[in-house]
């Protein structure tokens, strides 16, 4: 029994320590962003990597998500004779939930894992130590541009996701299944409010923070050797994805 309590205590302390370290990490990152934001080129480079290079995967995911919503929504609404509401169903699902969540999950898989691997390799090959030894702040060169870029890129990618998804739903619902195009857009216009767009924006910006925070943190505190980097990368992707889903639930329950 004593052994069990001892183990539980040890685990709780380790968890608290990790949480404290993570909080310090993000607070120091923001302090660095405000105090020494770094060169614009570094920011544009990361914006290109996290944002522009994610465009294709976001486009593809959004198109098929919208198309599936169009199909499922049509046959469900048909049972109630209200297939004219399809535009509203597709748009609200995408803007409030699927757009921010799916675009964040896609960015986590594509860019988040790469961020952790890159910073992790810099850590194990002493490149981060080299920066520090030159009296240069690693947070300024590595964390600030990535965190800022994710905060800018995620809402933009999410809006692209929403637009493409709505168009995907339109192609299936209107062009394939014969829903009236006027009804599709009219119902959408009637039901989507600024509040819904605001909810989507808040979600996507906070998911951008989660992705860049977790992925930078895991890379910065990576373990030893190639195995350490591989574990850090896996853990960053899993942790970011799970946190995105949990945070999404909390935000939805608070903002609705």
């Amino acid at each position: 029994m004593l052994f069990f309590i001892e183990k539980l205590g040890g685990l709780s302390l380790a968890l608290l320590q990790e949480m404290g370290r993570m909080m310090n990490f993000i607070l120091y990152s923001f302090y660095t962003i405000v105090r020494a934001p770094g060169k614009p080129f570094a920011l544009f480079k990361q914006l290109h990597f996290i944002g522009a290079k994610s465009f294709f995967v976001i486009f593809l995911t959004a198109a098929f998500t919208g198309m599936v919503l169009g199909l499922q929504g049509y046959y469900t609404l048909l049972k109630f004779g209200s297939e004219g509401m399809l535009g509203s169903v597709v748009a609200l699902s995408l803007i409030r939930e699927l757009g921010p969540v799916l675009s964040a999950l896609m960015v986590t898989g594509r860019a988040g894992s790469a961020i952790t691997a890159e910073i992790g390799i810099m850590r194990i090959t002493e490149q981060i130590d080299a920066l520090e030894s030159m009296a240069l702040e690693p947070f300024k060169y590595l964390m600030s541009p990535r965190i800022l870029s994710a905060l800018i890129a995620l809402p933009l990618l999410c809006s692209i996701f929403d637009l493409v998804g709505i168009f995907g739903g339109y192609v299936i619902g209107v062009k394939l299944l014969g829903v009236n195009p006027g009804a599709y857009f009219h119902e959408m216009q009637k039901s989507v409010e600024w509040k819904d767009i605001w909810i989507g924006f808040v979600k996507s910006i906070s998911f951008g923070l989660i992705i860049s925070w977790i992925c930078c943190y895991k890379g910065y505190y990576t373990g030893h050797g190639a195995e350490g980097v591989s574990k850090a990368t896996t853990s960053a992707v899993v942790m970011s994805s799970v946190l995105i889903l949990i945070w999404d639930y909390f935000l939805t329950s608070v903002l609705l």
Partner: protein
Amino acid sequence: MIRLVKLNKAFGSQKVINNLDLDIPTGAITAIIGPSGEGKSVLIKLMIGLLKPDSGQILVDGEDITVMRRDQLNRLREKFGMLFQNSALFDSMTVYENVSFPLEEKTRLSSNEIRERVHEALEHVGLKGVDDKFPDQLSGGMKKRVALARALLLNPEIILFDEPTTGLDPIISRAINGLIRKTHERFGFTAVIVTHEVPEIFELCDYAAMLYKGKILMSGTPGEFLNSKDPLIGQFVKGELDGPLQFS
């Protein structure tokens, strides 16, 4: 002067540095020698604040770096240059970008002045025409030289060398040691070299200190090491298998 006072550092239950005292004289080349895995690299990282000791003091020109805030430590680090064991060049940058990086970030020099300084530093370490190469296109010895050029560029008062010749062939090793001597004579910095390559290092250093079981076993001139009657030091300096040094 760098002064280490009653320094302790452990990783988990493994005590690496144990109540260690050491003085590094200004302007000289001091070698810290000892068997592999004795914490020499840990010691050098403690000196520049890359690792934090569990207790004790690290005094650099009288200032204790163990109690410094991050910004204070960064100011003090401007006195330092460091050459890492695996060179630690930025692998996404070319040789030119690697060497010019500290100048671009820490000075207001024009790009022409930076180019001039970078080429001067590269020429000084015997490298020409490698500006556009990436670190993975260079040999081990060339990487060390690029790293040395980068470390020298801001004219540091103290340069820390972590195993500068490990993994290099004897000729390149001798060339790197010669380069360290030549640059030391020219710039007059304080050099701390961590190495297990004895007796070769005695040709280069002014003083040596042997680290064993977390403590400084002996410090003195190379001559004193070579004439030491201590069986442990004698065994290590001569590289003999039999003796009090245990290999696990």
